[in-house]
């Protein structure tokens, strides 16, 4: 009875109107032999008070063991202004659905139009969709899009420095397609140009680059984009949105499609989701984009307003010819990112980027001064780096955890042969005091 409105008396009135003797009768279309003859085997129902206690206990099991976060690997604990939560908790935003009826959805439609604009401003690209699931599937969607744009359905090339989980998603998506995903190894922490050129050919739909890459290193992105273009392939860049407060924007160095994990833009870690897939591209590829697009138009009275646009690309109209099977998007997370970017503005984003960068370099300086610790790759990095631990990465992680600091992930999680490396990341939230304490702990 938790959320039900109708009382037994009303149920009887309703059945009378329907002309049914009982609720069971309404289920008569389900053959009796297919009906479940027993109650579901579920834990007993909990009242709100009990649920709060139960979940509170589970949460506490985590929080009591959590340390100060220096973790990276594709999602980060950047600071989330309270105003972001206030906006995202507006009932009218979070309990609405896809804005099919534009007249009843101008709030969300305009917010998503603003999101598209903000993403373009952030990435330096010309058009953006209204969000995809998360960073990993966005890479796959970009690859499919590149195939449609280039007409090359056989091959995409990814750098080995792209997030291994993103590459895994591409592998999964391609498993029953004729398209091959070639991975160019990056043993030195960044792309090897010769190897990249070897992999690229006139059958290649795109080259997928991550900047900064999974190991934290900065790729020579401009040159990689050019290499892709030389063979007529598209350059797909997967980036950390926060880094764009400091680094050259993909639009500035010629990227054709930019994708990103947008979690850093105001969404909490939540053990991995829901996060935010960002996909932006050049204007001329607009009609090949996957996902929802919001457009400005005018209404019957000539007022400017917003609508779902170019829906002909989508699966509810095109069905098997659709640009993607995506139906839900990440509306609420896109709204969070919108609010976040609106609050930070250009200056705020610049500050977050610079603080994260400076602190990460201070962490690196402190940690690599300790015997047995070094940078795995001597390359410029932004807010994250690969720490090589001579005495074992798992041991270092355990030592840090003991002292109340979470570092990682271990790279062994992605490559069992690598037992010495782990990632360390820093956001604007970390203080010098915390960094020094981490270094002291690892130095013990």
């Amino acid at each position, binding site marked *: 009875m938790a959320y039900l409105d109708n009382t037994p008396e009303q149920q009887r009135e309703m059945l009378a109107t329907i002309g049914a003797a009982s609720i069971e009768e309404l289920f008569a279309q389900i053959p009796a032999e*297919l009906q479940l003859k027993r109650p*579901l085997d579920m834990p007993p129902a909990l009242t709100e008070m009990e649920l709060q206690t139960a979940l509170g206990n589970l949460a506490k099991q985590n929080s009591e063991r959590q340390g100060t976060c220096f973790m990276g690997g594709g999602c980060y604990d950047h600071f989330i202004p309270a105003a972001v939560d206030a906006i995202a908790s507006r009932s009218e935003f979070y309990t609405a659905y896809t804005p099919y009826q534009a007249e009843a959805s101008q709030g969300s439609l305009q917010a998503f139009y603003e999101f598209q604009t903000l993403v373009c401003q952030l990435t330096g690209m010309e058009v953006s969709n209204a969000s995809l699931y998360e960073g990993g599937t966005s890479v796959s969607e970009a690859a499919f899009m590149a195939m449609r744009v280039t007409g090359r359905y056989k091959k995409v090339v990814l750098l080995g420095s792209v997030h291994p989980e993103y590459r895994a998603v591409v592998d999964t998506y391609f498993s029953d397609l004729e398209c091959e995903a070639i991975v160019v190894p990056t043993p030195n922490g960044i792309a090897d140009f010769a190897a990249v050129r070897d992999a690229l050919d006139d059958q290649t739909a795109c080259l997928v680059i991550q900047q900064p890459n999974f190991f934290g290193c900065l790729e020579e992105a401009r040159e990689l984009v050019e290499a892709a273009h030389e063979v007529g392939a598209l350059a797909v860049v997967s980036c950390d949105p926060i880094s764009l407060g400091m680094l050259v924007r993909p639009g500035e160095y010629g990227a054709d499609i930019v994708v990103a994990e947008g979690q850093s833009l105001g969404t909490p870690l939540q053990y991995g989701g829901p996060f935010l897939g960002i996909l932006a591209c050049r204007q001329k590829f607009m009609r090949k984009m996957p996902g929802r697009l919001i457009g400005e138009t005018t209404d019957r009275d000539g007022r400017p307003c917003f609508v779902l646009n170019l829906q002909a690309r989508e699966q509810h109209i095109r069905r098997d010819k659709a640009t993607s*099977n995506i139906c839900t998007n990440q509306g609420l997370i896109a709204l969070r990112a919108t609010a976040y970017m609106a609050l*930070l503005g250009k200056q705020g984003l610049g500050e977050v980027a610079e603080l994260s960068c400076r602190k990460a370099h201070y962490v690196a300086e402190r940690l690599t001064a300790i015997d047995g610790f070094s940078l795995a790759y001597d390359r410029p990095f932004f807010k994250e780096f690969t720490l090589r631990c001579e005495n074992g990465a798992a041991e270092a992680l355990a030592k840090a955890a003991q002292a109340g600091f979470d570092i990682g992930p271990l790279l062994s999680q992605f490559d069992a042969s690598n037992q010495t490396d782990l990632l360390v990341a820093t956001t604007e939230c970390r203080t010098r005091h915390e960094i020094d304490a981490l270094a002291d702990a690892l130095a013990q």
Partner: protein
Amino acid sequence: QATQLLFDQSHPGRRGITFPASDVPEGALDEMIPAAQRSKSLPELPEVTEPAVIRHYVNLSTLNMSVDTHFYPLGSCTMKYNPKRHERLAALPGLVDLHPYATAHSSQGMLQMLFETQEMLAEIAGLPAVSLQPAAGAQGELAALLVAAAYFRDRGEKRTKVLFPDSAHGTNPASANIAGFECVQLPSTDKGFVDLDLLKEQLDDQTAVFMITNPNTLGMFEREIGTIAEMVHAAGGLVYIDGANMNAILGITRPGDFGGDMMHYNVHKTFTGPHGAGGPGSGPIAVRDFLAEYLPGPVVAKNDTGEFQLEQPAKSIGRVRSFFGNVGILLRGYCYLRTLGAQGLREVSENAVLNANYLLAKLKGVLPVPQGDRCMHEFVATAKSLATKKGITAMDIAKRLLDYGFHAPTVYFPMVVPEAVMVEPTETESKETLDAFAAAILAISEEDADYVHAAPHTTPVRRPDDVKAARQPNLRWTPTCE
């Protein structure tokens, strides 16, 4: 004020938030990042203050209809009430701030929640193995089809076709296509059910999967689902149940019991994740035991010592997304399942079906339902006669309902019904609300057709020009020259 764009409020120098000065030793940025890698300018994000941002988005929000403010009978979308306790609990420290790469040791509470969610979803499905990873229903479909493909590949079978009825959600063929299958669409019977003869014709040793939504998109339970499953299985294929309409059958019948081999849930629909104006969703899949080893992962397992851990199934198709899944939505689903229990879940479906049948009974006089006098949790009526006689179309009704303070039903879907009006009231609405909604539709049917056709009359905007939007796409604001 509300409809002014954020960008129009930007002024150089305004700040919405400031950050502390750096507390680490000064260093030259050039020594950290080469100048060539650094942009000479900051991204041109707008510069607005916190008060302005808040007023802007709070005002924008009020231009939406939503479940918290209006009856929202959008068919196929299960717009039920989103309990407030879920929002409070999802924000608990230890849940909201847990990094997905936290060690198993420091995520036992989270893993236990996810493990129990797997167990409950398996029980409700009647299918023993669950992967929580898919980010949404459509991704669940894709993942399950890849599972099927891996299964057949493993068995050395080459099966290339996916069949589905013409009433299927558009995501079914789109997913099948992306998974590399050939799509075969089957025309439904007059009554909107699967045509067994046509199905028989199509079933062969090329058939990998038959995808079916049950209850179907017309809101009807496929009576012959048992036979259908037998036929598919006899042909060596698998039956996929699109679980979009699970809200009708919780604890009443189970996909695993009526022949399904695989299914997805829409946690945001059936188990009430807030729809967020388009998402996030969450689309876990449940499969039969012989398919378990192919599931995407990681999944949560309980080891011998009672500890929870992440595991990749032995022959997993791999990942379908990064990290674990849409945990924030799964958490809300968990809260919902724990709140309702077995009896509560059954009551959800009973009342969802009762509410739909009640509305059907009240509306069928003016909006006939070709599929008959009974439905499951939703029904598809037709405005065809109203359109013919008075010129009032399904779209007109949808728009005019907004004036009455109701969100519109889904219209023009499924395509097998002309002038379709697809109504899903959900169980969390009261008889009083249903009565008011029925009264509104009856009133509209008697209004002047021109007036209805000019509707909505009271909304912030009225019938936006979709054609213009598509012809001259304007997908972003750009600064005008001064």
